[in-house]
């Protein structure tokens, strides 16, 4: 019987294991040093905030693995010896494999800041980092101030977590406006306001220079490039993540930023595959980046590689881009491509609408000459994934999207609906006279 070994028990590795089990009888081993059982990394913040206990982040009960004959090994892989098809672990004998899937995910970036390895300096990615946070910042008495460095999604999550325990937070963001490398200006501005509304000391266009240490080797303050020294007990480094592949350095597996893979998720060495955050596409797919540290791409790659390993060789073929996040209290969804002002191409035009009072806004991107709909960002409005996926595939125009926007609304029942207002404002700006069509179940579920 063939043995498939998966390094990493995150969403990518576990999805691969589940699908291999569905498709075959192979022996499956998952190795992880981080945790005994699979948990949802995205939910770690809720454990600190007291919404959930750690066990709630585990999507499968503990008996699931044995029942599905998925062997779990807790250990750290030091080396991949592909000549002998075996893995060398820290504290036990080698593990042989016939097929190897590398799904080790990422780790927080550290850009060589002075003091980045002091006590009280950490990222927020692993279970261990969550536990460390609970030790270093249990409440505002033990942690009178925290500084977060890096203006991304993990940074704002960490800020929200600390604020839930009333810990004062200073948030250093390199950009001139929060996440404006990804979000268009109007949206980024709205999030800036929202962050400050939550009593987070947001400092834009500010870089970390160094972290100062006390006598015991703990972080006691940070120095910024604006010349400020901010005393703090905790420094959160959340300036993005990088593939977690240091252990593969001399393995002969081709590495770039991550583990280089082709569209079949195969590495340069036979029978070794890489999926999830740590995989780097040889060539980018569409507008996607070669390394995509997104929950659902890990899931998709896991499923794809399972098919390939089980004899149905399949290309990794992600469909239209989508994603979602939550900035404190504002939900964000995106379908298709809406580029930030910085990355926008010449022919990408935006229609932006923002509610006068509520923190609700949308941005629709379209092609300036043929008015083709390119993508949508929504803040504070939920949209139906299927509908946008369909419209993108059907190459609909932005006018069509406006006309049928009500079909796409996914907000809970009895919520205020803004489509009327949005279309009015669109008509005014574009000189069109579109009348929004009433929501139709028939259209919404036509593919069902």
């Amino acid at each position, binding site marked *: 019987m063939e043995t498939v070994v998966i390094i990493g028990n995150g969403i990518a590795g576990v999805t691969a294991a589940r699908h291999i089990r569905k498709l075959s009888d192979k022996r499956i081993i998952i190795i992880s040093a981080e945790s005994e059982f699979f948990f949802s990394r995205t939910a770690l913040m809720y454990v600190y905030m007291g919404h*959930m206990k750690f066990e709630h982040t585990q999507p499968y009960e503990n008996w699931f693995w044995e029942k599905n004959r998925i062997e779990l090994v807790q250990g750290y892989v030091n080396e991949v010896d592909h000549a002998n098809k075996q893995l060398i672990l820290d504290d036990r004998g080698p593990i042989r494999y016939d097929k190897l899937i590398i799904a080790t995910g990422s780790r927080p970036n550290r850009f060589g800041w002075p003091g980045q390895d002091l006590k009280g300096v950490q990222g927020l990615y692993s279970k261990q980092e969550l536990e460390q946070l609970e030790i270093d910042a249990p409440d505002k008495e033990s942690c009178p101030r925290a500084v977060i460095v890096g203006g991304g999604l993990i940074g704002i999550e960490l800020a929200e977590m600390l604020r839930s325990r009333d810990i004062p937070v200073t948030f250093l963001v390199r950009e001139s406006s929060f996440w404006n490398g990804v979000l268009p200006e109007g949206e980024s501005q709205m999030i800036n306001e929202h962050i400050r509304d939550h009593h987070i000391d947001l400092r834009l266009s500010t870089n970390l220079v160094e972290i100062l240490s006390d006598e015991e080797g703990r972080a006691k303050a940070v120095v910024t490039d604006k010349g400020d020294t901010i005393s703090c007990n905790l420094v959160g480094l959340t300036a993005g993540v990088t593939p977690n592949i240091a252990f593969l350095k001399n393995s002969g597996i081709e590495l770039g930023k991550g583990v280089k893979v082709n569209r079949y998720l195969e590495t340069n060495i036979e029978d070794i595959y890489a999926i999830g955050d740590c995989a780097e596409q040889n060539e980018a797919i569409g507008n996607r980046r070669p390394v995509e540290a997104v929950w659902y791409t890990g899931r998709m790659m896991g499923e794809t590689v399972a*098919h390939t390993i089980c004899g*149905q060789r399949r290309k990794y073929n992600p469909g239209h881009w989508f994603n979602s996040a939550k900035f404190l209290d504002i939900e964000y969804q995106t379908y298709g491509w809406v580029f930030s002002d910085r990355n926008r191409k010449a022919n990408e035009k935006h229609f932006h609408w923002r509610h006068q009072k509520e923190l609700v806004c949308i941005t629709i991107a379209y092609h300036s000459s043929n008015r083709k709909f390119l993508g949508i960002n929504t803040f504070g409005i939920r949209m139906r994934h*299927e509908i946008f996926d369909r419209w993108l595939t059907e190459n609909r125009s932005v006018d069509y999207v406006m006309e049928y926007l009500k079909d796409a609304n996914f907000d809970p029942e009895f919520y205020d609906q803004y489509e009327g207002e949005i279309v009015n404002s669109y008509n005014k700006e574009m000189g069109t006279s579109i009348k929004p069509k009433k929501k139709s179940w028939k259209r919404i*579920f036509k593919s069902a």
Partner: protein
Amino acid sequence: MKTIKRIGLIVFLIGLGIFTSLPFIGTYSLTSSDFTKWVEEKGIKSELFIKDIEQEVVGKDFSGMHNLTPIIATALDEANSTHRKNKEYKKVIYTKAHDISADLGKQAGSGFIPENKGLMWFMTFGLGIIGALMYILPNVVLLGKKGIKNDGIYHANSTNRGWIAWLVFFYLIAFYLLLYFRPQFAVNWTYLVDPTSEALSGNPAGHWFVYGFMYCTVMTVMGVRMYIKYRHNRYQMIRTTSVLFFQIVFAFLIPEIMVRLQMPYYDFKNAFPLDYDFFFQWNLRSLINSGGIGIFILVWGTLLTLVIVPVMVYFFGKRWYCSWVCGCGGLAETLGDPYRQHSSKTLLSWRVERWLIHGVLVFAVGMTLMTLYSFFSETGTVLGIKTSSVQNTYSLLIGSIFAGVIGTGFYPIFGNRVWCRFGCPLAAYLGFVQRFKSRFRITTNGGQCISCGNCSTYCEQGIDVRAYAQKGENIIRSSCVGCGICSAVCPRGVLKLENGPEKGRINPTQVLLGNDVDLMELVNDK
């Protein structure tokens, strides 16, 4: 703000403390005239019992029901055993000692409590309400910006099965045991609400009136908490208003007013088989004997169960009843909301749930068929089993212990819908319709789920919502009561309650949006 909360908590605890002390205090002195009147009213024929009570009780002062009850119970036992020995069966008193004590106690109550009903109401209910509101209202400010804040739920002793939760658990269980099985200790409580009861039905309050009044009070106060916590979620606001309305108007006011108008006591929203004694002989007789209104109730009750319930479930799912109308659901959604995260999501509990709830449904239906057979054929037994003993067993095990003691008492430890999930026969019936013939489903939004587990954690019915959401599969489960919290707590906008077209609501495929696969190729591969 925090100070107001603290003071509120103290005021609430004082009110609760006084309320809790009432069963053990008070003076009871039965006058001879009251006793004679009572004997006449009840048609007591046992001269032994009458003599005993006249000697031992009448004209004497007792402090606390625990001193009075044993005397009455002994008198009753002795009288009954003598009558049985002498084969004087007509003189035997069949009412239980607890009920007689409660009855006589109500007549006998004297002193401060029955003489100062208004003040005592204020010292118990009044302080409780004021204290609770002082504790709850500051959240308008403290909860801050828009959004549902579940912060700290698993850090707080009271909501994380800490000692406070266990204390509440034991308190609630003791309260229900007393209410169902030792009503004589509730006598002092009845004085508090006598004025309300007299205003409504014209009668002094019994212990069930106390319970009804308390139910409405607790639901309203905790409803305020719901309004504040979910103030930015209109679905929750409207739903809370709806359950409050149905509880206060339909379950509480209308039945009492009907009694005043010489009509039968009836809760128009209470459908069989939750209303398990609807088809019991005594109810059918009393309805048939009450003329037009009785017949109307009979027809309405039957229609409600056979037509209205399934038709409404077809259009809206069982949520229209369980989350918008039902009193049990109403208490669960208000008083029980802080504990909703404790419903077990394990596969094991799901298995137990299915056996248990369907078992209760079978029991209820079987019992009713027996009852109807007995009613029409005028026999007391079916296939050698006594109908009345089946009815009594059901009343005790399901009606009292499961629905009351376990159903509410277990909130702080096992989640707020223990009864609805494991025991309610109506929920089981509605669930069948919802599962097989309904437009309702929880729609999942393509590939947006990040498996965070908020939905599953906060599902009061113990559904592992995430298991469906991460597969992009609509949730069609007979147990879902459509409370809408999963949708509210989802940080990615994945879940939506929908009454859409029935076709295509079950989508068991696991093709998520995101992976563009050639479907024909996929089919050929498999």
